[in-house]
């Protein structure tokens, strides 16, 4: 018998993977266009343009795939970590169907080329109203996940007075608490600006106010994607690899810092926007550097945990523990390789965040290279690695092919090693992002030599994704039935008893988080909201 949590996880992950398929397919089109292949004429009338394809790619990958996967995986983990059922199965199903309704509503104009506005949907580009309402429904539904998680945790605490919240449950709660605070910006942008405007209730909008509200959510959304990957790296991968989590106190501390620092840094996406004073931009740069600190703690702690695994498996030297990891396990291999590439994604992120240095890379292909290391590998490859145990667990069947899975994982790693550095370099050579590069009126010779590598890297990534979907489809339909082992979390070298109790107190940290947001964002948002006339008309020019 499967539990409600398992069924909820299964349906959410199923939607996520369907979205990912659409996302990688359209990704292939863009990579080929860059390489000079005339792909779009043969895709008409389904895909109308490079920009139609690109919008589908972005929305499906970073909004739909991530959100559905996280809303399936994280509640499942919380429930297993607390060894308690979800507080409300009914709320769980209501949430899922609300999200599906939102997705369908948004997908109709998206697929129909009535919302070719990119996943950032900057006005005055004006999409069909259903696109905005659909996405808003998905966001609001994620708040119901938060409600369910909190109710589940409170019920557990009432039954277990004085017990420390297990680390995985703690991380699940931090992820959704952070996201709920952070998503207020996007909700405000939708409800106050975009939805009334797209419905024709108000005549105009404002680009800067909309962008500021968007990036209020748009940066922390990357932590909404990353923290569930970290949750797996901290609480599951050490055991899968045969070791222990190095330090539970340090892990908790880093998550509290993510809760506090993820949101008041979004203006680092707007360094090049006129209309915001440099002083505020500098403050957001400072706080962005501060959030680098918990990232470094995570890097250390997860690496040290892998080292315990390598040593438990017989390694004795300084570095050979890395080679001793269980590389034959595709779930471990995927996630360790995701960590390796994420180290470079983190370094690149610091460069982007560095205020005036941002002028070298902003809106160039460099950013595309960066995003494919972070969400495209650290998150996507980790989630794929998770599904290598989660899908068999949910389906009650063995993984169809371990060898195919390993090939998939290494192809993704190798494809990304070609794709991402090439895009970084093209960005440094001045090539813009979000542009049909194969058709630009200003092709530069220093771009032309590198563009075929984008096509080759993208094709390898697509091949990897095909192997992945083949394996997943055969696992749930054709693989042999085999009861899967119960989910077990990693033991620790230094456990939760060594973490000061105040780390687990919510009120002070939530208060600090909100105060920092008010300080970093309050004056700018109040000034813009108070002084900006909403007079910019919308346009649909695609």
């Amino acid at each position: 018998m499967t539990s409600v949590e398992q069924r909820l996880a299964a349906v959410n992950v199923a939607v996520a993977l369907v979205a990912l398929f659409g996302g990688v397919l359209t990704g292939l089109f863009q990579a080929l266009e860059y390489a000079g292949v005339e792909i779009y004429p043969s895709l008409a009338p389904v895909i109308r343009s490079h920009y139609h394809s690109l919008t589908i790619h972005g929305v499906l990958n970073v909004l739909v795939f991530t959100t559905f996967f996280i809303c399936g995986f994280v509640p499942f983990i919380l429930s297993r970590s607390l060894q308690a059922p979800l507080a409300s199965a009914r709320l769980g199903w209501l949430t899922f169907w609300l999200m599906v309704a939102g997705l369908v509503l948004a997908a109709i104009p998206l697929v129909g080329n009535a919302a070719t506005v990119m996943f950032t949907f900057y006005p005055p580009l004006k999409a069909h109203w259903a696109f905005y309402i659909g996405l808003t429904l998905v966001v609001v539904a994620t708040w119901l996940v938060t409600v369910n998680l909190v109710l589940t945790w409170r019920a557990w605490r009432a039954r277990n007075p004085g017990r420390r919240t297990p680390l995985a449950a703690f991380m699940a709660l931090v992820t959704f608490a952070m996201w709920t605070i952070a998503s207020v910006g996007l909700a405000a942008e939708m409800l106050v600006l975009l939805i009334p405007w797209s419905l024709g209730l108000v005549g105009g909008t404002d680009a800067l106010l909309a962008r500021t509200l968007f990036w209020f959510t748009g940066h922390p959304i990357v932590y909404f994607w990353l923290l569930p990957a970290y949750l797996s790296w901290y609480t599951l991968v050490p055991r899968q690899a045969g070791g222990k989590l190095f330090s539970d106190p340090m892990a908790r501390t880093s998550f509290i810092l993510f809760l506090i620092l993820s949101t008041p840094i979004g203006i680092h996406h707007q360094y090049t926007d006129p209309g915001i004073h440099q002083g505020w931009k500098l403050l957001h740069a400072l706080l962005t550097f501060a959030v680098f600190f918990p990232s470094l703690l995570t890097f250390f702690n997860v690496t040290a945990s892998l080292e315990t695994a390598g040593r438990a498996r017989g390694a004795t030297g300084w570095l050979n523990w890395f080679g001793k990891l269980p590389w034959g396990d595709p779930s471990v291999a995927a996630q360790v390789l995701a960590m390796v590439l994420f180290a470079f994604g983190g370094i690149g992120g610091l460069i982007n965040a560095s205020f005036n240095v941002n002028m070298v890379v902003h809106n160039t292909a460099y950013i595309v290279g960066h995003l494919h290391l972070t969400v495209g590998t650290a998150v996507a490859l980790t989630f794929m690695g998770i599904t290598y145990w989660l899908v068999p667990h949910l389906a009650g069947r063995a993984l169809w092919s371990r060898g195919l899975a390993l090939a998939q994982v290494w192809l993704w790693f190798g494809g990304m090693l070609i794709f991402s550095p090439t895009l970084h370099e093209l960005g440094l050579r001045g090539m813009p992002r979000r542009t049909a590069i194969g058709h630009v009126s200003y092709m530069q010779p220093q771009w032309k030599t590198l563009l075929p590598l984008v096509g080759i890297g993208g094709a390898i990534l697509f091949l990897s994704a095909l192997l992945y979907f083949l394996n997943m489809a055969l696992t749930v339909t054709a693989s042999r039935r085999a009861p899967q082992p119960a989910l077990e979390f990693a033991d620790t070298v230094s456990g939760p008893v060594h973490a000061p109790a105040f780390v687990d107190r919510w009120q002070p940290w939530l208060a600090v988080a909100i105060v920092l947001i008010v300080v970093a964002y309050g004056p700018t948002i109040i000034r813009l909201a108070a002084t900006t006339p909403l007079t910019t008309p919308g346009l649909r020019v695609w």
Partner: protein
Amino acid sequence: MATGRPSTVYLWELAWILPSIALPVGMLAALAVTAFGAGINVAGDRGRVEPTKVAEHPLFKDPGVSEIAPGQYEVRMTGQIWSFAPAEIRVPAGSTVHFWATSKDLVHGLFVPRHNVNVMLLPGQIAHAQARFDTPGEYPIICHEYCGIAHHTMAGKIIVEARR
């Protein structure tokens, strides 16, 4: 509490935490030197322009290039789907160019690679950037924000002419 915690855990943690604080602090210091010492700065607040009345604004009613002082050129520029006005700028080598720009419709970008000109053109906002062009040659001005179906054709150029 804290019974049985391996004492080396603290040492390893501390050995990592201290450089992890020093690194971002050091980077921030370097950044402050370039921003305040070398004066390399990002876009700031230069005021608003009513987006439906750009052509009535003194800066934008007559887009073009003027020499405002010896070696100092002012470019008054608008971006609109899918062009820059002016689309071509000629200055002698060694000139400093001050860009004043805005958008007449959608979000556009004003990007001159390798010259610290990277600023968004938002309808309603006045954007400013400045750069020095020392080497004769032709430099592209690129719109680097998606602005509709012909976005990839929105570009201009700066022609830097050798001084005679």
